[in-house]
């Protein structure tokens, strides 16, 4: 028994989609397609891209071989002229007569050409097919002034084409008092208008064209108000007219204003004949968008394969980029008060207009309009379609959660129900997308397009598809709980609170109470840092839990020697102290170098020599520079007002005061500061964890900057404050960081991860939003008051000094493996 035959009349986007849908559901049919155009189906939605460089091939919906591969017979350039419903045959213009079991009319629409005298003149075009575009292109080469009739969606698409063709002067003429009257309101229209104007499009509204002037060639347009617009080219894109002439001829029921009448199964008045796309009239309406057309195609494919599917009125929400401007309209865009409450946001500077209509009880989003910035479209549409309950401040939907909070796109999408329609072109739900991630290991948008077709239509849902992929992967992936290591199920902050509340002073106790096992090289230094940050005990009392640098109070270097960095606050040093550094370096054969933080590093010290070196430095008035610790390193300064002719304040004195204040305090990671005496910023303070810059009125305090591998400028915490306030804010900021940051997290990363970001931090530090500032100030004062120079303690304690022997059984011997090579009159470590 041979297969029943389905003949499709029309090879446009919807006709093509029908073939695709049908073969994906079943191979029980013999499919034959007749197309009027010389090309096989192409993407008419993105037609204007033909002028911006895309070729006809780029726009094709499929390759030509796709039809043969799927056993579809395709007749192009051969419109059907006649349907014989009694014999169930069609007859083509080239004389082919074929019988059908089912007939699908996907004849689409043609451009609506208003009945204006002169439309037949040379230089008047419609905008519908690639052929139309080619005619326009040829003619445009000699055109100086072009006009588009129609300020709707299609009209503006055509206007983009006119702009892309490089016609020097372009006008858009609209009969209605606003642009895109079916999608946006008048405020939105005026915003769009000014955006388009800035792009070189002149917009004429309220213009009814009386006639087209010119002998046989167009020379101008004459309007009802007697004004005249000289143009030498006109593109008419004033709407569509369903192609129902064939259906009418066959005696099918058509609407009074056009369109083939169909039921919810897309059946015409003849049950064997269907109509889909822009030629179909459903419930008194023509659907001029591609997404409902695809849905209709699927309804017919379902019917033919005995699946149950009906066409219901379709969401006409839409988002497009028109001439580079985002325009979106969703849900009930035009409902007005008192039936709803409307929130409007307008920014004429950036050209952004947003309107949302919410239910009078404030619970639900009903619809809205977005011009200039439609990033929120997908989420807003989902909020409407899934009747998601609105947050207490629905204006956040337009403005984003203010207060610097980073947008949380992923989480929002993940909260949608599984049946939420994500890709309306291809009818792909959230559930289907998540399922593809879960069960088919799809992890990319491209993969998702192949697997589910989501995002292959208009492409508007692609950002949401992306969020769903990452959101699902995150939900599945190895969820890394923020714990310190295998020995503690706590974050650093949790552990700090436990240790503080229970006043625990020793690592072993912490491990016994809150951990398991014997600890490791990860949790030991973390706990050491916490204990230091809370109690500021001498760290060498628990030396075996310190990282090597903290254990030996020096920085281990290549070859196993250490470097020594005495503190030089603010980079200020007397000649006498410089001489001592020189003498010590000479005596112990150390390599010397100026550091980035305005101090001097002495490299190549044997572990055994460290106590003796420090004894000599301390005798000369030096202190530990804590270069080995996760603690304050330096506060870099410019020379400031004491010498500099530009300096506003004494930056060196302030830098010294601050460095002295916070020296020795242990923190989750190292801390660097800077003070600049004027806006020239010679101390590079904005690249530091905290940076202070003099202003006419006081100081600007910046925080959370970073140099290093991911440079980040510090952000302004407070402006024009006096020294006392500056220190108060710094106290709070530093202690808040010490208490809440994860291990080995610099302030910049800490801030980047902080919910609410800088505004939150400001609120805590300046407005005391957490009510902890008094505590923070007391805590840091406690650390400041208990400062001690660790090296001084070691130098004065013979037991502690003993720990710096390399061989415990041969204290006098240095490590014989340590070797140096000469370089530029100094030494360097031997290569490893």
């Amino acid at each position, binding site marked *: 028994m041979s297969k029943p035959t389905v003949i499709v009349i029309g090879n446009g986007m919807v006709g093509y989609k029908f073939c695709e849908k049908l073969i994906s559901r079943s191979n029980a049919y013999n499919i034959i397609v007749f197309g009027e155009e010389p090309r096989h189906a192409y993407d008419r939605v993105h037609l204007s891209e033909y002028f911006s460089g895309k070729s006809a091939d780029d726009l094709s919906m499929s390759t030509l071989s796709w039809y043969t591969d799927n056993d579809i017979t395709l007749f192009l350039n051969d419109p059907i002229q006649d349907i014989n419903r009694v014999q169930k045959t069609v007859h083509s213009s080239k004389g082919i007569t074929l019988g059908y079991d089912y007939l699908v009319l996907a004849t689409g629409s043609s451009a609506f050409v208003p009945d204006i005298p002169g439309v037949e003149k040379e230089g008047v075009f419609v905008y519908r097919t690639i052929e139309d575009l080619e005619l326009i292109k040829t003619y445009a080469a000699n055109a100086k002034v072009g006009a588009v009739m129609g300020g709707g969606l299609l009209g503006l698409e055509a206007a983009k084409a006119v702009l892309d063709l490089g016609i020097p002067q372009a006008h858009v003429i609209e009969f209605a008092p606003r642009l895109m009257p079916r999608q946006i309101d008048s405020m939105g229209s005026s915003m769009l208008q000014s955006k388009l104007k800035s792009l070189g499009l002149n917009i004429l509204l309220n213009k009814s064209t009386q006639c087209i002037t010119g002998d046989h060639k167009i020379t101008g347009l004459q309007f009802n108000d007697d004004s005249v617009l000289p143009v030498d080219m006109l593109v008419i894109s004033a709407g569509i007219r369903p192609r129902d002439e064939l259906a009418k001829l066959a005696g099918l029921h058509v609407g009074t204003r056009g369109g083939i009448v169909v039921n919810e199964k897309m059946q015409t008045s003849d049950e064997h004949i269907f109509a889909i796309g822009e030629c179909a009239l459903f419930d008194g309406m023509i659907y001029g968008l591609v997404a409902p057309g695809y849905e209709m195609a699927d309804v017919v494919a379902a019917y033919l394969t005995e699946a149950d599917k009906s066409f219901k009125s379709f969401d006409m929400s839409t988002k497009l980029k028109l001439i580079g401007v985002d325009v979106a309209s969703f849900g009930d865009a035009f409902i007005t008060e008192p039936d709803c409450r409307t929130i409007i946001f307008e920014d004429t500077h950036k050209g952004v207009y947003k309107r949302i209509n919410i239910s009078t009880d404030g619970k639900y989003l009903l619809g809205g309009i977005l011009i200039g910035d439609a990033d929120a479209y997908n989420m807003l549409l989902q909020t409407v379609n899934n009747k998601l309950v609105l947050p207490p401040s629905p204006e956040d939907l337009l403005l984003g959660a203010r207060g610097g909070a980073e947008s949380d796109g992923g989480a929002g999408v993940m909260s949608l129900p599984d049946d939420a329609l994500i890709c309306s072109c291809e009818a792909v739900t959230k559930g289907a997308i998540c399922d593809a991630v879960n069960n088919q290991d799809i992890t990319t948008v491209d993969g998702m397009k192949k697997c589910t077709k989501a995002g292959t239509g208009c492409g508007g849902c692609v950002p949401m598809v992306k969020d769903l992929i990452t959101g699902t992967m995150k939900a599945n992936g190895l969820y890394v709980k923020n714990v310190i290591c*295998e*020995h503690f199920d706590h974050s650093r902050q949790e552990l700090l609170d436990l240790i503080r509340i229970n006043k625990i002073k020793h690592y*072993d106790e912490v491990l016994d109470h809150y951990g398991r*096992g*014997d*600890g*490791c*090289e990860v*949790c*030991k*230094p973390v706990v050491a840092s916490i204990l230091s940050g809370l109690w500021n005990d001498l760290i060498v009392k628990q*030396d*075996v*839990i310190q*990282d*090597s*640098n903290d*254990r*030996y109070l020096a920085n*281990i270097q290549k*070859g*196993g020697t250490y470097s020594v960095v005495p503190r030089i606050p603010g980079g200020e040093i007397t000649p006498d102290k410089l001489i001592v550094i020189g003498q010590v370096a000479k005596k112990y054969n150390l390599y010397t170098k100026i550091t980035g933080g305005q101090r001097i590093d002495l490299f190549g010290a044997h572990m055994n020599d460290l106590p003796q070196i420090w004894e000599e430095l301390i005798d000369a008035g030096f202190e530990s520079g804590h270069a080995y610790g996760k603690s304050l390193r330096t506060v870099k300064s410019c020379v400031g007002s004491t010498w500099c002719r530009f300096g506003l304040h004494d930056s060196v004195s302030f830098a010294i005061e601050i460095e002295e204040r916070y020296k020795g305090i242990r923190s989750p990671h190292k801390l660097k500061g800077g003070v600049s005496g004027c806006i020239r910023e010679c101390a590079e303070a904005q690249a530091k964890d905290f940076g202070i810059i003099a202003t006419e009125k006081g100081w600007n305090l910046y925080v959370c900057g970073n140099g290093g591998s991911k440079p980040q400028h510090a952000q302004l915490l407070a402006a024009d404050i006096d020294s006392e306030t500056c220190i108060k804010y710094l106290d709070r900021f530093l202690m808040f960081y010490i208490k809440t940051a994860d291990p080995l997290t610099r302030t910049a990363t800490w801030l980047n991860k902080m919910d609410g970001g800088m505004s939150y931090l400001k609120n805590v530090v300046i407005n005391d939003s957490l009510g902890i500032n008094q505590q923070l100030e007391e805590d840091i004062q406690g650390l400041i008051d208990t400062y001690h120079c660790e090296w001084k303690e070691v130098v004065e304690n013979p037991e502690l000094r003993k*720990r710096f022997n*390399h*061989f*415990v*059984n*041969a204290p006098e*011997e240095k*490590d014989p*493996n340590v070797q140096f090579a000469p370089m530029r009159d100094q030494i360097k470590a031997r290569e*490893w």
Partner: protein
Amino acid sequence: MATTDTLTNTQWVMACFTDDIPDNGGACVKLGDEQIAIFNFKRRDEWFATQNLCPHKQQMVLSRGMIGSTGDDCDPKVACPFHKKTFSLLTGECLSGDDYQIKTYPVKVTEGKVYIGIA
């Protein structure tokens, strides 16, 4: 200072006194030309000894590393202070996924003295 265990033919060499090695930490001893890291794992009441050389960058530093344990069985380990390569104190196997192997030595503690067993 050396005694020999006749059964296993292990020679026990006195390395240092127990209080030379910090609790839950390590220190280095010199035995002939060799540098040996000795660890006093007080928390477990165990002693371990390994070569002092970290095979990764040939640095004499393992004695200065932090000790700890890993896994459900609490296998004892030491982490090199340079790049945190970790090694089993029992087998000398590198636990950070590299192909290194360090020497381990048996340790005996009597009367406040630490002995290393040399095969």
